């Protein structure tokens, strides 16, 4: 049984590799800024977006992107308003969007197997069009990261000094969370809403264990991420397992090994 003779598996691998490349690039800034839980929050928000798409009969991927990006700006505003604690803002959006998603889904009669695909990922249903949209979004996110790389690095290291040399800290923070929202939306088909944050966070915290400089840490995270995703997709194909689960467990296994060495 050759995996490459199935068109859907080839598309699945393409989509998986796109996500594997882009997720740690955002993840490293989220981890270092202590924003790890934002990825999870945004993932739950994206479910509300998907539910909205199902209800309105639109492509759920597009509505997920729209709702997640708009909410991400709201989260950042609420987080920095100091009216409530930052992490409470995350908890509020996380549970609030899930409640909204459930209501929308019940209105759309959307509690069916289709929903499971969004929750747990389903690379076999990725279409060529999906891959194209993911590639375009990933290219956009990479370009934005490239353009604002030095600002992101500086505020992650030392926000106050960054402010003192005139770096627009507030704008960069909003940019980061909007980019995170885009990556979350585009990762849905691969591992599903419930496991997206693992893709952004685990390869980065694994790479951090090597105690290298910034650029090297990114490269290590990329290698771990890409290899885990490829391994997870192929392994799950031959053993008929959940792809998302296999990918995340592979990442955790690498993390465990690195921690022990």
């Amino acid at each position, binding site marked *: 049984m050759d995996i490459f003779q199935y068109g859907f598996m080839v598309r699945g691998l393409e989509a998986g590799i796109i996500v594997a490349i882009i997720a740690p690039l955002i993840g490293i800034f989220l981890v*270092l800024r202590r924003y790890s839980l934002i990825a999870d929050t945004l993932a739950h928000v994206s479910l509300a977006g998907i539910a909205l798409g199902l209800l309105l009969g639109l492509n759920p991927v597009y509505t997920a992107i729209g709702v997640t990006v708009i909410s991400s700006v709201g989260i950042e505003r609420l987080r920095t308003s100091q009216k409530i604690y930052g992490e409470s803002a995350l908890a509020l959006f996380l549970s609030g969007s899930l409640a909204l998603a459930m209501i929308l889904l019940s209105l759309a009669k959307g509690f069916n197997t289709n929903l499971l695909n969004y929750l747990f990922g389903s690379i076999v249903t990725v279409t060529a069009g999906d891959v194209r949209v993911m590639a375009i979004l990933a290219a956009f996110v990479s370009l934005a990261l490239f*353009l*604002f*790389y*030095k*600002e992101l*690095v*500086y505020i*992650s*290291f*030392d926000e*106050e*000094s*960054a*402010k*003192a*040399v*005139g*770096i627009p800290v507030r704008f960069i923070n909003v940019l980061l969370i909007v980019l995170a929202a885009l990556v979350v939306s585009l990762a849905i088909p691969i591992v599903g809403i419930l496991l997206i944050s693992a893709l952004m966070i685990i390869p980065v915290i694994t*790479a*951090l264990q090597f*105690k*290298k*400089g*910034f*650029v*090297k*840490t990114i490269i290590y995270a990329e290698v771990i991420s890409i290899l885990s995703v490829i391994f997870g997709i192929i392994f799950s194909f031959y053993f008929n397992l959940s792809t998302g689960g296999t990918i995340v467990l592979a990442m955790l296994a690498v993390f465990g090994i690195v921690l022990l060495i």
Partner: protein
Amino acid sequence: MPQIDHTKKIVEISDVSFSYGKEEVLKDISLDIHQGDYLGLVGPNGAGKTTLLKIMLGLLSPTKGEIKLFGTDLKKFKKWSDIGYVPQKATSFDVNFPATVKEVVLMGRYGKKGLFRHTDGRDEIIVKKALEEVGMQEYENRLIGDLSGGQQQRVFIARAIAGEPKIIFLDEPTSGIDAKTQDEFYTLIKKLNTELDLTLILISHDIEKITKEAMHIACVDKTLVYHETPERFLESVHAKEFVGENAKFTTHHHS
């Protein structure tokens, strides 16, 4: 001895007050800092020194009064690359942050570059020179978190110099560093003033040391209590008051 150019005002503080909520931290402070000066900013704990520094850097807005940097009102000031900042060590960064010494110093070039422009070979050369200036060139590939407190502070100075500023603000740069390293550190700071011609504003809790090093002393305790040369400052009643009453204010011990 470097010359102070009294015709060129780098920082002008006019009638500045600041409150956190209802608590007034600074009241009616006016102070000019001229090009080439090395100003030691002293005062008891909680006297508002750091607040004043942050106001000068635009990190906090005064409740009353005006600040000018290089003759431009702070609200309109754009040339932040002329400003260097060495923050209080302990609070400013995460020791587990994955950055090499070189990467940290390169950040000093970021403000200079502006949006969308990346650092290049010329920036690398400037970074190397800055590291040589502070005697840390051998450590360029080490992780910042693996260095001692004194070494980290040298790296932060190198980061400030790498931005090629005209003035550097230092907030208690020697806190938590042993006495011998502190002496080396003050020698380095003085070199920035004498050899690189940088204007310096340094917050210190160590009156004995800073009065030997700085060209002027400004003593802040909510208001500007005193602004004079170190000699006259030491003769003044205020110094005696602080040295006598506030033990924490003078923590320099000779062994």
